[in-house]
């Protein structure tokens, strides 16, 4: 019961940036270019939740925070929600009245191509996020959900390519992604892990033959 309350609170908190955007739009406090602010905010939170989702497994297995397990899906779906809103803000609000531009942009502008690729990667993940899908797909579910890494790389590169000159902020996100990847490698090959045992076994086999 308490767990569910905490979970609900986390979701409410995670939707706060959205509420702030809505209130800001009504009160005209989103700056001189509100659509740009909305695009930027939804984009940033997409990346944050995506990296957050990717951080759950390392935190759980290295840090021992077992209770975090259900949040991987929550954060992933939040990332997808923000990403959808990000795309809609850009494709509908920003390009209002010039609908042909969206397709042209996706094809022509590398940072948009990459960003859109990230979104496309997230669609099947959102669709197969149900318990039933996990059961049905089994091993293939794990393989499919590696697309989350692709989406994260796309998101970081999208951010890096769109800034005019000051690339500090996108580099921070890229660094966090790098650290999460390093944690994965560590988990995979640390002494005692399945992969390490397997590697050691095959090494000793080839040595004895």
């Amino acid at each position: 019961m308490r767990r569910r309350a905490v979970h609900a609170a986390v979701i409410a908190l995670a939707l706060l940036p959205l509420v702030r955007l809505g209130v800001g739009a009504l009160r005209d406090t989103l700056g001189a270019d509100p659509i740009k602010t909305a695009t930027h905010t939804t984009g940033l939170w997409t990346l944050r939740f995506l990296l957050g989702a990717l951080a759950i497994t390392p935190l759980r297995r290295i840090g021992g925070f077992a209770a975090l397990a259900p949040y991987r899906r929550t954060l992933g779906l939040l990332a997808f929600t923000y990403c959808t809103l990000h795309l809609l803000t850009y494709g509908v609000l920003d390009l209002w009245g010039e609908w042909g531009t969206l397709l042209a942009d996706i094809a022509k502008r590398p940072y948009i191509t990459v960003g859109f690729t990230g979104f496309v990667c997230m669609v099947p993940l959102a669709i197969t996020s149900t318990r039933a899908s996990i059961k049905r797909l089994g091993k293939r579910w794990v393989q499919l959900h590696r697309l989350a890494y692709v989406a994260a790389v796309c998101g970081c590169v999208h951010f890096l390519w769109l800034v005019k000159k000051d690339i500090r902020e996108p580099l921070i996100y890229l660094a966090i992604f790098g650290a999460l990847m390093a944690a994965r490698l560590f988990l995979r090959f640390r002494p005692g892990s399945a992969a390490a045992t397997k590697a050691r076994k095959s090494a000793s086999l080839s040595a004895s033959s």
Partner: protein
Amino acid sequence: MLIRRNRFAEPPEREVTDAALYLRRREFVVGAGLAAGALLLPGCGRGGDEAKAAAAAPAKSSDSPDGFRTGEEQTPFEKATSYNNFYEFGTDKEDPKDNSGGFVPKPWSVAVEGEIARPGTLALEDLAPAAAIQERIYRMRCVEAWSMVIPWRGIPLADVLKRFEPTSRAKFVAFTSVLRPAQMPGQRRNVLEWPYREGLRIDEAMNPLALLATGMYGRDLPNQNGAPLRLVTPWKYGFKGIKSIVAIRLQEAQPETTWNMAAPDEYGFYSNVNPEVDHPRWSQARERRIGEFAKRPTLPFNGYAEQVASLYAGMDLRKNF
């Protein structure tokens, strides 16, 4: 709820748009709408030409013939002073407003040097004496595809340059911004190569539209807008409008310019507003006028083609972007 009343919300009489122009404002909106509609139908015969004609017409009809004053709705002071690209104070749009409080724009002097008969360093008051100050209302088009309409005060650049009697070897004008990392936090990091530099060809500099601005909205320039002296060239992208100028040098060689040095494939020396030549990463065909929802078509030379297009006759504007 706290309701903050902006004391600039009521502009002085001289800044009020003529009623006749104001009443015609919807024509421009309709014109832009038609243009947008026409652009949506690229396959429909003469659609493209009609769009161009409609796009070129509305802005011009509200401009004075010399281009000095546009009748288009002015951007609110609050927005023009809180949404700025002035990397010396930080790279976010609100940074210049937030971080420029410690900048001291007075006293100020400007060195005028190079290929001129009478080089020297002048106090700002002597370079731009109060009696010579004129008002201009210009569109401002940022390279990032947004735009504003700003009432400037200043002195035509040509008037300043002529006083120093340029020699026949003065082919270009090079401008340099102030270097004050202690007062300009953005200069403590090498986001760009400081100090900021810009330049114009001499005939561009002598064009009556080129303005050395000392004020906007009927008052001195706020720090975040380039106090106390900045360049305004309304037919070029905003970054050509170098801020907080300390040196003006006339020279034979084309000067190096900051954004061109930073990314030569993205920012050319000329940087004339041109809807047909995209930024490598985004389109320049349309722009968002700050305060408006739908984007509007961008006009060649930002709507000042009549005044400046002849400067570039015979030049390939795709190459010389």
